């Protein structure tokens, strides 16, 4: 794997961890239980620390690289929304019921631990970063354990096989998400000529459109029609 690809993975991981921190912080604020609020608070704290760790790793790996390559790996918080790590619809706790949310945490922490193992392998054994990732993996397993404990305590009617069901469902969802993402990229390539054609047609119209007619010079701005969008 090339250095750029490794940076790309670290870059995405930072967004994923920051997104998780915000999800947990939102859950902490939204939940009605003071115990759950505490649990989510601690979880959010860990995710914030993971974000910081991955930022440091990315920074250490990037500062000697060619500027044009690393510019795109700058972290801008708004990327959390544009990249889809936080949904435009809102945080998960705002859109899911509590049971599904806990199941989501339970399964995703385990999946996160698996993906960190892959990152650890990529970074190579026996280095400082690798040890830091091991600690993060331990945290994720702890979060997974806590979610499982909570789940079984408050929803005792659910059997381990049902947890397995949630896990499988989430795994399939994640894989589908990846497949969808790949297809989107593929479809974009196919449809780009069509978009370009549409753009060219619109550009002809835009050239004809005389926007200077709507100039404001010497107008009382307070008198302009408040229903007009132009």
């Amino acid at each position, binding site marked *: 794997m090339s250095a750029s690809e490794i940076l790309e993975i670290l870059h995405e991981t930072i967004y994923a961890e920051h997104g998780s921190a915000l999800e947990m912080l939102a859950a902490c604020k939204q939940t009605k239980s003071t115990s759950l*609020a505490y649990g989510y608070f601690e979880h959010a704290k860990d995710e914030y620390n993971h974000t910081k760790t991955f930022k440091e790793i990315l920074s250490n790996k990037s500062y000697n690289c060619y500027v044009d390559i690393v510019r795109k790996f700058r972290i801008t918080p708004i990327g959390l929304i544009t990249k889809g790590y936080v949904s435009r619809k809102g945080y998960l706790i705002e859109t899911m019921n509590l049971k599904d949310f806990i199941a989501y945490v339970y399964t995703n922490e385990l999946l996160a631990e698996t993906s960190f193992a892959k990152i650890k392998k990529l970074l190579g054994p026996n280095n400082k970063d690798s040890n830091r990732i091991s600690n993060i993996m331990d945290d994720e397993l702890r979060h997974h354990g806590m979610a499982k404990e909570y789940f079984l305590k408050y929803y005792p009617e659910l059997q381990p096989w049902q947890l397995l069901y949630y896990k499988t469902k989430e795994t399939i969802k994640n894989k589908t998400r990846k497949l969808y993402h790949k297809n989107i990229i593929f479809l974009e390539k196919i449809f780009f000529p069509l978009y370009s054609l549409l753009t060219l047609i619109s550009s002809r119209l835009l*050239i004809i459109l005389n926007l200077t007619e709507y100039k*404001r010079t010497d107008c009382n701005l307070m008198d302009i029609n408040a229903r007009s969008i132009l």
Partner: protein
Amino acid sequence: MFIGISAYNHESAIALVDESGTLINYYREESLSRIKGDKSFPKRGLKRIIKLHELENDSINSVIFYERPLSSFLFPLKEATKYLPESMNLMVHQIRNFNKSSLSCYIDLAKYCPGLEKKLIYTDHHLSHTLTSIAYSNKQENLCSIVVDGFGDRSTSSISYVKDKYNIKELWSSNYPASLGLFYSTITDFLGFSINEGEYKVMGLSAFGKSESKEAKLITRLIRWDKCKNEIIMDLTYFSFHKSITNSYNHKLKDLLGEPRNPFAKLQPGDKYFQRYANIARGAQDITNEILSEIFKFAYQITKSNHFLFSGGVALNSSSIEYLANLEFVKSIIIPPSPGDSGAAIGASYFGYLKSNLKNKSIDKPKLYPSEYSCIEQRDHIKKILDTKFRVVTNKEDESIDLACKLISQGEVIGVIISNGETGPRALGNRSLICNGSNKHSVNVLNTLIKSRSPFRPTAPAMRKHIAEKYFQLNPAIMDSYNSMNATCRSKKDSISITYPITHIDGTARLQIVQDNTILWNILERLENMGIEILANSSLNISGDPTCFDIIDGLMVCSIAPLNYLLTDLGMIKKR
């Protein structure tokens, strides 16, 4: 009730003005979503405002969007047509994402508050800025309003004459893409900082640069003011923001200024390339000062008013304000506490108010802390967090302030979350990190260990007026700006404040004169008796996050940063 909304371009916000012309609530969406620079439709702010004020559709007179959506969509697109096929990707991107632009305001409003979309009206982008400024001005007639930003819905800079609040005539404008704001953003990008986020870092860096350096002089090739035509001339051959999604500059700028800065490289005084980057920042700051002063001169010439309102993103450049206030014809400059797009939500709500059929309309000067909140509302919710990880040292207000003073005098950094939040982006005491402004160690802990800020960035001081007069050269034309940290000023010659860590390398400080009966006023009143006259004041957050809004955010900062104390509505809280 009138709801003003700004969104989709920069940080989104929502403002609520009542039928007596008072701003009664205001939220930046980033405060609630915790995503810095969140520009999505302010759904959380809207929801909170509706809940807190028990609003129903019938009680809302109008919802006002701060710009004309079709204009803001079409103007950049039309410009891009000139650069086809090079601009094809940008155009495809804009057209495909039209539903994430201002055009979707109507749809989003219908989605989050069905029925309210029928009450949606629009105003001009720069008019929203002007009305925001008017709201913060004691004088509301015969004013000159100057708006300078990246891009509004049709122009990038404008001058209007405000005869009164119903009669605002635009006299001059600069068309996209010639933009002082976008020029500054491009230099921000070139210096490795993020656009719309790192501009203030460029301003801080510029103090280390030299105006007579080669790099600073080269910057003058990029943008200038044409004194004959009275317009901003930008050499677009160095820029790409008007034809590319990903690049704001091109190879020609690299040929001119050398290799851009690696965003991940450390930037510290004394480093190999530090001076080169500082000189570039100096050049950008110098040309910004120069063009702004030319705009002000021209504005004075055509409006004959020497009382100015200044807003738009460029008005956040506090270093320029001091420069402008020194122009001989300037009597006053009013800058709203949030002069950028998020503050424009306030102007938009006033637009609806002024257009309504109400009688005897007057605009009340908004408070500096309009975002309604109290830690009390989350007291029960955080019980377990407080019991397990923190300790309430005292819940009595007076004792908490005494303890805060004692801790500050011992060199401790204190976090503050008290009552309502600021309009932003500057923390003015209710959402702040504070420490002794003359203690180098404390300021260093605040700046470097807690906030992870670059060492070249100064921390702002807060003090009472008589102390500010003692140490700094205050300019009477911008006295209001000192209340909201909108302007820098110079330390007096031979004053000890030059040696304080809150004073920047060039002898300036972006000071805050605290208002009476605020939390900082109460703390400073007691600290002065203990020999501490100046506080260092920075926003309560960690690097990359927005300023804290509620107590949970504050407790989180305490948990992940070396911050031990939090002064709140619930008392003084200590980390275990």
